[in-house]
Every structure is written in C-alpha cells, then in structure tokens.
C-alpha cells in the first residue's frame, strides 16, 4: 500500500531545513524587520552597576572569548567600553583564552585607542569618549593560561600571575595607574566578557565569591541559564545574555550597533526553529493518529 505522507515526512532530508535556516539568516540582512531591542532585568542591573561607578573608577576587564563567539558579546564589549570611557575609568585588560590575544590587540586598536563615539556620531545621544593612551589610561596585561587556577592567582596577585609585566613588556611598577592595583579586590568593578570556560563561572567560583567582588558578566546566550543562579544569589551583580542582551545594552548606552541589528535578524531565525518544532510535532502526531487508525481497522 502507498506510504502515508507523515511517514515520508518523518524521513525527509534534513538538508532542506538547513537551506531554510540559511535563507532565514541571509535574507533579513537585506530586509530587516526593525523591531526595537529592549534590555531585560539582568542586563539593566549590569548597566546600573557600571553607571553607579565614580569618575575615574578602576575597572578590570577580562576578555575571554574566541572569534566564534564575537557576534554575541562583542557588541556588549564595545558598548560597555564606551560607557566606561565616558566615566574616564582606568581600565586593566586580561584574557584567559589562548584564542583571544590577537583579538584583544585588535580591540585595543579599534575601541580603546580611538574614540568610539566622537562628536557627531550618527544615532548617538550620550557623551563623547576620548582615545585612551596605553599604560596611562589603560593597561593590557595579556594572556595567561591555567583555567581556574590562574583566575585564583589574579585574585591573590596580578604581578605574580603576569610575571610582573604588561603584555607589551613594560614592568608593572613603571606604570603609574597600576599603583595600588595588586589584585582583583583592588578594583571598583570587574567586567567579564565571557564566552565560556574559563570565564565568568570560574571567576565566581575561584575569586568572586571568596573576595565578594563586584562583578558583571556578559555571556553567550547558552551560558545564560548557567550563570542566572549566580545573578540570583548576587554572586554576579549583572548579567548580559547573548546577542539579545548585547542589543539591550547597546540601547541603554545609547549607541545601537551590530547587536541591535543582529537581534533583529535573530527574530526570523527563532521563527524558523519554532516552525521546525511545530512542523515536527504535526508530522509526529499525524503519523501516530494514522497508525492508530490502521491499528483499529
């Protein structure tokens, strides 16, 4: 007898779904929906934490990501850096991801050493920022490997962890702004740009909780559920989850960028997946119903 349509659909080539998904990602790039991105509560908390910083606060930024995860959290990074520079914060950067260093160098060139929002930036309302000078306004400590252990080491002594020199080889004691910045506890805020492990979770486990550090984290959407409990317990005072979160943060800082645009495309992608689920279930139940019928007859 002829095969029921549901059975045929049960084993249809998944590459069709791939194709649809591909279109769902590419097409909106050219025809955006333009839905506004709103920050969620955890994102707002992160923004408030930075907003509450005093002028010239000292902030430790850990950039733990690889090229793959940049779409999700790079927008947050650019936004928060702008926000910090508007406060003239003294910034200290480090990374625990070996995939990161060249990326970090690029960020230094593209976001720290130039003004992100110079006067007359289109679609920008906030204060303008200024170019930062290396080892004067900011220090890049560079990369150290060692997962939780090295993060614990940051907590006890940055000098030891980084063998007493910044990434460009300058001895730390010769950098005025590093005075009194011995360990993580000496900073007013710790910003974790964290794409996975090691990252926000390890910071919470190995130093954050122990030293009661004020930490905010931006993570991939995936890790959001992982880190949400820490936000609930206050081990993290702010949490920016994935592209949507980044988009929200951009809105708060007042300079929409890649995150906002991406989040817009995200909608279509989500619809596709939801349809895939619904479709899958229709097929499934139709098949089950059909089998029942046949069983009955």
């Amino acid at each position, binding site marked *: 007898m002829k095969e029921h349509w549901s059975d045929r659909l049960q084993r249809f080539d998944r590459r069709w779904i*791939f194709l649809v998904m591909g279109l769902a990602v590419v097409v909106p790039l050219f025809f955006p929906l333009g839905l*506004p991105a709103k920050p*969620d509560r955890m994102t707002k908390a992160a923004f408030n934490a930075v907003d509450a910083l005093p002028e010239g606060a000292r902030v430790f930024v850990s950039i733990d990501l690889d090229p793959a*995860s940049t779409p999700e959290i790079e927008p947050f990074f650019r936004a928060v850096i702008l926000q910090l520079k508007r406060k003239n914060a003294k910034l200290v950067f480090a990374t625990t991801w070996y995939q990161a260093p060249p990326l970090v*160098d690029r960020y230094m060139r593209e976001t720290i050493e130039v003004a992100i929002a110079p006067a007359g930036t289109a679609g920008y309302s906030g204060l303008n920022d200024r*170019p930062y000078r290396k080892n004067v306004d900011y220090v890049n400590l560079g990369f150290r490997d060692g997962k939780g*252990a*090295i993060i614990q080491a940051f907590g006890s002594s940055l000098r030891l962890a980084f063998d007493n020199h910044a990434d460009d080889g300058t001895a730390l004691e010769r950098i005025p702004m590093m005075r009194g910045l011995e360990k993580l506890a000496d900073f007013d805020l710790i910003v974790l740009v964290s794409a996975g492990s090691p990252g926000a979770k390890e910071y919470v486990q190995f130093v954050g909780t122990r030293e009661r550090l004020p930490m905010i984290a931006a993570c991939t959407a995936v890790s959001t559920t992982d880190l*949400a409990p820490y936000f*609930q317990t206050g081990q993290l005072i702010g949490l920016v989850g994935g592209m949507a979160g980044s988009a929200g943060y951009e809105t708060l800082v007042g300079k929409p960028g890649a995150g906002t645009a991406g989040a817009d495309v995200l909608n279509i992608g989500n619809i596709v997946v939801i349809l895939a689920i619904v479709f899958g279930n229709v097929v499934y139940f139709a098949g089950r119903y059909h089998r029942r019928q046949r069983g009955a007859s």
Partner: protein
Amino acid sequence: MKKTLPLLFGMVFGAYAVIEFYIPHHLVGSLSDELRSWAAILAAAAFIIGGINILQVTWPKIRRREPDWQYKVVLLAAAAVMLLAGLPWHKLGDTPATPTVLIEAVPGPAHLVVNAPADVTIQVGAVIAPPRPDGARYQADVGPGTVEVKLSRRVPGYRTQLAPITITDGQRVTVTGDPPMLWGREGRVFVWIYDHIFSPSNATMFALLAFFVASAAFRAFRARNLEAALLLGAAILMMLGRAPLGRAISDVFPDLAQWILDVPSNGGRRAIMMGAAIGAIATALRIILGIERSHLGSDA
C-alpha cells in the same frame, strides 16, 4: 613502588591544596601561587608532547600513502608555517623603535617635516595627518615646544615608531621613519593567518550549529510525553521571550521567559549544581586520599 611513591607525592600536594584555602598566612599564599605556576608550566609543556604525538600519528599515514594522506600534509604544513611565523625573527635584525630625527637651524617659525612611506599613518600630537594626494608627506609650521610624532601602519604586525620632538623657532626638524614589520605572536604573518584562516574557520565551524540546532529541533522535539512537552514548551517560550519578537507580540513573553529562568530553571540547575558539586568533592577526596589511582596507570 613505582606507583606508590608518585601516589604519595600527589597526596601531599593534594592535601596542601585543600588546607591552603583555610590558612590566610602570606607564606602559604605565595607557596600556592608557586605551585599554580608549576601546574601551568606542566600544562604548557604537554603541548609540545601533543605536537610530537600528532607527528607520530600522521607521519606514518603520509609515508604509507594512506587515504587522505594529502590532507595530512596540509595539516603538518599549516602547523609548521604557524610555528615558524610565531618565532620572533625580527629580533635577529634590528627593528628601530624610533624614527631618525634631523634638526637643522633654519630661520623662520618652528617647522616640522615627516617622511614616511605612503601607507604609513602619521600622527603629530593628537592630530592625524591626512594622506596628501601629491604623495608629499606631512610638513607644517608648528608652535615651539614638545610634540610627539607617531608613525604606524593600520594593519597589525608592524612596530609603531614614536619620537618626542622638542622644537623651537628657527629650527626645522625632519623625522624619517618606516614602521618595521614584526614576526612572532604580534607579527604580520602570524596575525594574518589568525585573522583570515583561524578566525573564519573557528567561527564557521561554530556557526554550523545554527543549522544543526534547527534540524535537531525538528527531529527530536516531539511532545511524546509530559517531560518532552515541558522541554519544548519552555524552549519555545524562551525563544519568544528573549528576542525582540516576543515583546513585539506581547509584554507577557519577556516576563514569562525571565520567570522560567528565575524559578523552574534555576531550581533544577541549582540541584544539578549541588549534586555535581558533592560528586566532584567526593571524587577529588578519593584522589587525594589515594583511593583513586587509575590515573597513574598500570604497573605492567
């Protein structure tokens, strides 16, 4: 014996790592830092062993012309290139960190001339000299005083040259420089490969998941029973609630998503977290107490 001694060796450090946490004394602190460095050093050294292992595994395949051997050649070649590009060859020659500065006495106001190749960005003080169509480089009358001249290339992999210039009226200062190319980790080749081979491959492999997630959703997310139904229900709500779309439909979705995150999700997660934590502590204790020893291999 060949197994007991290493076991004891480990137990000592394991025990130390446990009690270290409870002893604030500074000597303990600095010892722990030292031991952490050891661990980092060992992990790093192991990578060289890993390289050797790859060589041991792939070289025979190439020699025996096993299927796909050509690709193995690509693999080894790529690794070799990256290793070579990663060494700081420029240290063999000299890479001037400062441009040459020539000061001449010329009547008139203080005059500054900067010579550098066309693709070099010239920055005098805070001003970036606009590239001039006639190809001539920066030259202008500057007020007397001290100004910093910065020569850099826009692409990474070159050493930026800095020269603080003190100039007075009746002087012409000529700065001549060319940011030298670097090798090693900040070097031109290494960063090029990172930017144009490593990054896109890394990002695209990850991006494949977008497609797999869709097909997995189609195939596996069937409301077979209550558990499955809950799973996919929560998934759909999350997708709606955490994207602008959901809010566009109704304000309820974001709140709902947040609530799911705060209450059921966190509840279950905390349970897994605690369970896993207990399991981890137990396993770790087993190792430190020497009950667990299989990681030390066989006496055979």
